[in-house]
């Protein structure tokens, strides 16, 4: 264990439990509590991955999941992040995006031609000759991308849960813990979230060896644990802040959708790398990364390192190394930092050079030395590690997403929130507050404010706890004539790339980002955006504020699809007769979220089964489940008035016990719904709607009742009532067996509706014939529906009854020339085009869409007609949606078509330009293969035009 240190005061590892896993085919051993990166580093693996574009060797850099140097592939997962993935037995990892292996990556050849690939090079080439582009694109696509997908991976879904609290606090560092305590003391319900497995934040790594902080640490942690109204959620990050204080909190178990009344953002800061030549060599890392390595995992960043610093935090990191018995060759201060840690470092005898200019890191595979400038002279130090401590950027994502505005504070040389939305508070380093005691005070102030906001109490005056010291270098970028100073490690973007982008006119933060792709990689600019902004500002002679910052959109970290999707909640609806359908092995189809029998496979083939169902209806009797129809009860003083206003035809003059076809259009006169209306009493109607519109029609009608100020109640009974249609010459005979009620024409004529007892229960029967036979639609409470259905099936046995499905019904209604709204009509069809002017009663003073219809009536250009096929139907039967052609012009389309055995023809409906709609007109139907077949416009209904059959007295025992 090359770099493993002795026990650390706050280490996260369990030295009694070791774990082993494979990396690039080699065995790695670490401790329980290690993450993959720390386990690898401890064993001296310094090359953890290859860079995106040039395939340069990359090591540990932020060690906080703010870069993707350590990005791995397993058999189950792409893009596994070593910085945060626990080391587990049996893991088998390889580096992503290598060609060959991590050690021998052929992709590295790209670096040889790097000079030919300046920023945005791919916009400059590959497009001509055109025919070559696909090959180039393929190559570029293969080079791009990171991990690999296995398309055989099974689906994974993690349940999600809601959690409602009063105050949500993001970040459980010193200020976050302090905020939680203050809020909780106000008696509100607090959730404290941190992405690490333990709370404590930088208190536990930056201050790990700072004895003076142990009291603060003890107080904060113990108080948080002792307060029952604080729920601590660890190993959880806030993927996104959404409106009304909703937080998407991602945990290993799944997504928690956390809603709060107020939110405290104590997310701290991202340490930013210094930009100098070869700053990406393995061994060059952020100082905070080194501190996390040592304090949490007891792993040394290196044996003998230098610390490049612009703030006193760098001195603390040097002290941490020193106190761990590691060699600090020197602290290289880019300025002249002051502070307690500076004094301590000097007291400890660590060499400090001030006013230093970094020049380049040396080394082929990993860091071997560092060259820097001092008083105009170049100096070289041999070292196996370089710690960078040159500044910070706020971890402001939740604040940006909440709508906070940031401004540049020169005192701390950092962007800080300058305006916060209602109920959102920021504290700690994200707010530019660095001194530990101040961070705690700042947190207490924010926590109190958040709680008071929940209670609706006034918030005391806001105090600024920032020390007057700059914790970030204003421009930590040192260009080198030979380049290779990396700003964005994800995307391999160097100083010259950004210069190039800016010089070419992409001198706006967003344009620079889009052209150079800075910040567009998987770490979304966490380690690069700030330096990018600093460069743009400097090169365009603007201030940071004038330059502006890019917005940080969700997700904070890439978030698993399985967590975001959660379980599958897709309501599915079945009718009360489902049991029968299933036992009959019905073939189901989906209608909205309903399941409906398409047909019952009684014959060898689908076609034959449907034919058998059709012939049963035409020659004997059939039974179809129409429970999916929308069913509305409309009752009250103004019921009749409402009906008149809703539908295009007059309804108020319906006799009690009568039924009538009901057609509805919208304000624009477009046909949206049809059904059957029944009048139970003066003030009580019952209407059906099409299956797909039941909910929307009900919604709309209720709305109209309010707009029109009518005294009427509308109830949606769709799911509470089962409905079936008994149709066929024998239907009356069947029903007679089940009811004493007189079914003959004089007692129960065509289009009448009656309420009676059938099979012993109350039902409503409507004598309508959608399929064009003697028929009864029976509506009955859902709880009795299946019983009635079974009774009819039994009673019908002797009359050859068959259940029939949607397909048979479609053909039967087509023979009858009845339209299906949504199939024979489209998004703009009006009643005149649908050939239903008979259903529009302009004499009514008012009805929905009337003025539109009056206009549309005068400008009709297309008409729905019936046609029959002239040529041989067998081999040339057109399909629905085939076009009608005249010369070159498209003059219409087939909306319905079917082979009618009853009529021995292929018949159909078509929407055609009115000039071609006359009876006898020949039509050319263009088959999908382009051939034309002839058809002729004929009158509808095709079957039983006079409707004798529907009106028949057959089976009533009286003379027909």
């Amino acid at each position, binding site marked *: 264990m090359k770099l493993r240190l002795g026990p650390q005061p706050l280490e996260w590892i369990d030295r009694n439990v070791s774990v082993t896993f494979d990396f690039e085919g080699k065995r790695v051993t670490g401790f329980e509590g290690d993450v993959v990166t720390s386990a690898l580093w401890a064993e001296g693996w310094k090359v953890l991955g290859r860079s995106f574009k040039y395939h340069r060797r990359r090591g540990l850099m932020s060690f906080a999941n703010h870069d993707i140097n350590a990005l791995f592939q397993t058999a189950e997962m792409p893009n596994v992040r070593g910085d945060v993935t626990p080391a587990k037995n049996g893991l088998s990892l390889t580096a992503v995006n290598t060609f060959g292996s991590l050690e021998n990556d052929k992709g590295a050849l790209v670096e040889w031609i790097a000079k030919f690939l300046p920023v945005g090079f791919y916009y400059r080439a590959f497009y001509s000759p055109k025919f070559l582009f696909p090959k180039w694109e393929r190559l570029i696509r293969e080079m791009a991308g990171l991990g690999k997908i296995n398309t055989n991976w099974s689906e994974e879904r993690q349940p999600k849960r*809601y959690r409602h609290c009063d105050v949500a606090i993001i970040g459980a560092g010193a200020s976050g813990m302090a905020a939680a305590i203050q809020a909780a003391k106000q008696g509100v319900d607090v959730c404290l979230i941190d992405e690490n497995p333990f709370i404590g934040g930088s208190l536990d790594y930056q201050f790990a060896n700072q004895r003076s902080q142990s009291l603060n640490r003890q107080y904060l942690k113990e108080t948080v644990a002792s307060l029952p109204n604080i729920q601590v959620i660890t190993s959880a990050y806030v993927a996104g802040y959404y409106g009304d204080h909703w937080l998407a909190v991602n945990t290993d*178990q799944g997504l928690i959708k956390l809603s709060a009344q107020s939110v405290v953002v104590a997310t701290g800061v991202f340490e930013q790398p210094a930009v100098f030549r070869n700053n990406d060599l393995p061994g060059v890392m952020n100082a905070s990364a080194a501190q996390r390595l040592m304090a949490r995992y007891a792993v040394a960043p290196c044996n003998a390192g230098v610390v490049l610093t612009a703030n006193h935090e760098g001195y603390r990191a040097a002290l941490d190394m020193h106190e761990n018995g590691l060699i600090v060759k020197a602290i290289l201060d880019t300025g002249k930092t002051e502070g307690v840690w500076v004094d301590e470092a000097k007291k400890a005898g660590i060499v400090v050079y001030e006013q230093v200019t970094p020049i380049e890191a040396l080394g082929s595979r990993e860091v071997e030395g560092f060259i820097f400038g001092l008083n105009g002279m170049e100096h070289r130090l041999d070292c196996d590690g370089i710690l960078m401590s040159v500044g910070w950027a706020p971890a402001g994502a939740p604040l940006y997403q909440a709508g906070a505005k940031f401004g540049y504070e020169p005192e701390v040389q950092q962007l800080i929130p300058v305006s916060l939305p209602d109920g959102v508070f920021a504290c700690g380093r994200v707010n530019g507050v660095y001194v530990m005691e101040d961070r705690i005070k700042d947190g207490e102030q924010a926590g109190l404010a958040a709680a008071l906001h929940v209670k609706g109490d006034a918030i005391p005056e806001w105090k600024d706890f920032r020390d007057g010291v700059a914790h970030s270098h204003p421009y930590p970028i040192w260009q080198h004539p030979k380049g290779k100073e990396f700003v964005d490690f994800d995307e391999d973007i160097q100083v010259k790339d950004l210069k190039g982008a800016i010089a070419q006119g992409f001198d706006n933060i967003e344009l620079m980002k889009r052209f150079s792709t800075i910040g567009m990689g998987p770490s979304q600019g966490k380690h690069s955006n700030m330096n990018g902004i600093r460069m743009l500002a400097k090169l365009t002679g603007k201030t940071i504020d004038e330059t502006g910052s890019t917005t940080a959109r969700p997700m904070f970290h890439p978030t698993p699809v399985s967590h975001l999707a959660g379980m599958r*909640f897709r*309501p599915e609806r079945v009718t009360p007769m489902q049991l029968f359908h299933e036992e009959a092995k019905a073939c189901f189809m989906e209608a909205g979220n309903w399941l409906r029998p398409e047909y019952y496979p009684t014959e060898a083939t689908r076609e034959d089964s449907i034919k058998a169902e059709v012939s049963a209806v035409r020659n004997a009797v059939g039974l179809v489940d129409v429970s999916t129809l929308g069913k509305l009860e409309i009752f009250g003083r103004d019921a009749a008035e409402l009906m008149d206003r809703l539908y295009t035809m007059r309804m108020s003059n319906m006799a009690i016990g009568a039924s009538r076809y009901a057609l509805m259009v919208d304000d624009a006169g477009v046909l949206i719904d049809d059904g059957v209306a029944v009048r139970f009493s003066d003030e009580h109607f019952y209407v059906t709607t099409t299956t797909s519109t039941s909910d929307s029609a009900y919604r709309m009608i209720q709305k109209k009742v309010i707009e029109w100020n009518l005294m009427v109640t509308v109830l949606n009974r769709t799911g*509470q009532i089962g409905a079936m249609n008994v149709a066929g010459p024998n239907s009356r005979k069947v029903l007679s067996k089940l009811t004493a009620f007189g079914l003959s024409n004089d007692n129960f004529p065509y289009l009448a509706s009656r309420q009676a007892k059938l099979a012993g229960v109350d039902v409503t029967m409507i004598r309508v014939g959608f399929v064009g036979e003697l028929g009864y639609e029976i509506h009955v409470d*859902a*709880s009795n529906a299946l019983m009635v259905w079974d009774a009819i099936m039994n009673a019908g046995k002797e009359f050859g009854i068959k259940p029939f499905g949607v397909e048979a019904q479609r053909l039967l209604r087509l023979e009858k020339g009845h339209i299906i709204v949504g199939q024979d009509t489209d998004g703009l069809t009006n009643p005149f085009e649908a050939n239903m002017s008979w259903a529009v009663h302009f004499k009514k003073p008012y009805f929905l869409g009337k003025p539109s219809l009056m206009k549309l009536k005068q400008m009709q250009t297309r008409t729905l007609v019936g046609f029959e096929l002239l040529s041989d139907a067998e081999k040339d039967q057109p399909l629905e949606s085939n076009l009608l052609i005249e010369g070159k012009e498209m003059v219409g389309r087939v909306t319905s078509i079917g082979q009618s055995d009853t009529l021995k023809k292929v018949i159909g409906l078509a929407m055609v330009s009115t000039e071609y709609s006359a009876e006898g007109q020949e039509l050319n139907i263009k088959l999908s293969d382009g051939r034309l077949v002839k058809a002729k416009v004929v009158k509808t209904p095709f079957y039983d035009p006079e409707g004798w059959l529907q009106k028949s007295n057959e089976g009533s025992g009286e003379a027909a």
Partner: protein
Amino acid sequence: MSIQIVPKAFPVLMHLRGEGLDEVLASLGTSNLDIFQYRFVANGQFVAKLGNEEIFVCVEQPLDISEEKKQYAFQRGDAIFELSGDWKGLMAEVCIYDFRQTQPGDFLMVLIAGVSAWLLIPEEGAPLVLGCDPTYGHYFYETLVRQLEVSPFLKMECQDDD
């Protein structure tokens, strides 16, 4: 604390609309019921008020209602379930509603797993009775059961209480 869900059969469910329904309520032995509140009137039987002129009753015998009072009664066949144990834990995974707002006695109508449902908010520790449109019943039941089986959150809680 494990969670159980069992389908529940109810005698007669009726949806009443019309005037003078308070008398009907009185006849069942309840009065001054606020909108979206329910009362148990006898073992398992309850009445809920859904609006000024609208109540939802679950009783043994069909109620007689008066035509001249313009009272309309409709049979209902809702799918009804009883949820015992940490029902709030399950609800937190299928329902966005913030149950901190409810009191025992509330008749709550919410969206659960994409379906409109009604809940009788029980006394602390008592089981939750909830129902939905009969045609969604099977989906509703299967969805809740599946959630109980797969949810790590619920499993975690089970362990806590063991």
